[in-house]
């Protein structure tokens, strides 16, 4: 069996360092398998979070060679194996222990987003007519597995920690807000929140979130930019305001 060296970050909330582990691996293994092998054979106290091993629970998020990845979906043969592989916890969050990051800030952020509020029903029996074409747009956002890899890679979180300061909700929650805001039966108004408190303007559309999303959600193009346009409609479009005043503006 071929050998590889894994440099794994070991530590806790106070800090830590990389430690090197040499181990064998076989073809078809994923990074999580190798981490488990190291845990079983060399480092019994290594903390790693995982659950489904199928890319569906979003627990095994970490950074492999500096790139946010689901460890269970990162096959060894996609990595350059002529050098060591670094595995570290997500950088945008505090560390619980070793590879386990404390992602609880995300649950707090989610609570601030105004929930679904249905518009009046279309029919007397209290039901709505919904067309597939309208539903599809927000359905894409339902695929999110809350792995928070997008939150981790976004430089506004990663380098500036604005998600921890409450100034920026981050890509995952723009996806969530877009899901609610584009829902064909939703009547809530989230634009003031998005503009001010949620900091949609801090996103500079560099698309790192879209690149890392394991569910291939087109986060920037389909969620964030449409939200920016909706915010621009209300707050940054003087001409539209004039047209509205003289009665030529469109309705939502």
């Amino acid at each position, binding site marked *: 069996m071929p050998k590889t060296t894994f440099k794994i*970050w070991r*530590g806790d909330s*106070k*800090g*830590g360092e*990389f430690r090197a582990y040499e181990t064998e691996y076989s073809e078809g293994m994923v990074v999580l398998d190798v981490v488990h092998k190291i845990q079983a054979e060399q480092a019994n106290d290594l903390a790693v979070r995982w659950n489904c091993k199928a890319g569906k629970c979003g627990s095994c998020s970490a*950074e492999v*060679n*500096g*790139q946010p990845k689901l460890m269970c979906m990162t096959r060894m043969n996609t990595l350059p194996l002529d*050098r060591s592989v*670094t595995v570290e*916890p997500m950088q945008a*969050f*505090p*560390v619980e222990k070793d590879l386990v990051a404390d992602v*609880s*800030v995300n649950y*707090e952020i989610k609570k*601030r987003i105004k*929930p679904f509020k249905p518009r009046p029903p279309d029919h007397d029996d209290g039901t709505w007519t919904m067309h*597939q*074409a*309208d539903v599809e747009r927000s359905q894409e956002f339902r695929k999110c597995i809350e792995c928070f890899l997008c939150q981790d*890679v976004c*430089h*506004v979180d*990663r*380098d*500036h920690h*604005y998600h*921890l*300061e409450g100034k920026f909700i981050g890509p995952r929650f723009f996806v969530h807000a877009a899901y609610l805001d584009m*829902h*064909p039966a*939703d009547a809530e108004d989230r634009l003031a929140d998005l503009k001010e408190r949620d*900091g*949609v*303007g*801090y*996103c*500079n*559309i*560099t*698309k*790192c979130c879209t*690149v*890392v999303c394991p569910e291939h959600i087109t986060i*920037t*193009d389909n969620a964030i*930019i*449409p939200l*920016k*346009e*909706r915010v*621009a*409609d209300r707050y*940054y*479009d003087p001409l539209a305001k004039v047209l509205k005043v003289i009665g030529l503006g469109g309705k*939502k």
Partner: protein
Amino acid sequence: MHSPSPNPRRAPFPMSADPTARAETLPETLPLPTVPRRPFLQTARTDRWWSKPLVVFLGLSAFIVYSTWAALQNAHFEFAGYLSPMYSPLFFDPGAGAPSPHAVFGAQPSWWPGWIPLYPAFLILWAPGGFRFTCYYYRGAYYKSHWASPASCGVGKAQKGYRGEQRFPLIFQNLHRYFLYFALAFLVVLSIDVYRGMWFGPNHDEFGIGLGTLVLAVNVVLLSGYTFGCHSLRHLVGGKLNLLARRPARLRAWNRVTWCNERHQLFAWLSLFWVGFTDFYVRMCSMGLWADVRIL
């Protein structure tokens, strides 16, 4: 690479007592990330993360240099019925001689002080320039390549503070839609230029098609692919509506714009290159270095 560092704000994370309650604010004692922020251009990435931003840097910079140079030439921007897109629409003929057949208002106005050179290209280039500068695709691209914010995904930044597009000055990127309106008008103007590029002879009354006509036509096709994929247009034609399916015409328009939008980056580069090439083609013909081929 990482040195262990104490985490001063670390405190037990206060989860709300009622997990279903809607919180207005974040808890006050949020723990800071443990792994220290990486310094400028530092990363654990092992791939060639710098190659794409480098290509973007070179490509955009080359175009800016060429188009500025071409706009400053004030000559060789027309040949036969062809007009370079960097000079279209041509409001005034910058030359002293007979006014160009393309000049909308004829010769340079007599009241224009002679000591201020009139650059007809600069009278118009702000519009397509502003359109591209505020384009969502280009913004994301040059924030990386020219501003390193960040240089590439997961690569350390130099900037300590960050205002993004949330505050002055970049908040003005939100005016992109206004540039879109001009860009749509330019498509009409450039289409008229293709038509005028079909007339040859000293009086421009002899119908024909030359290689240059095709070059101008491809330019309009690529620019249309780019402009019709604009995110602001996508919003305008239907994206702003949640109940789009009730308006079939707008749904159809939204679907078409979405098709272009999914290829926006591709069209952005193709059209950028082709605008430059179209100017170059006309310029080479006008300078007598290339011979235009008459196809018809």
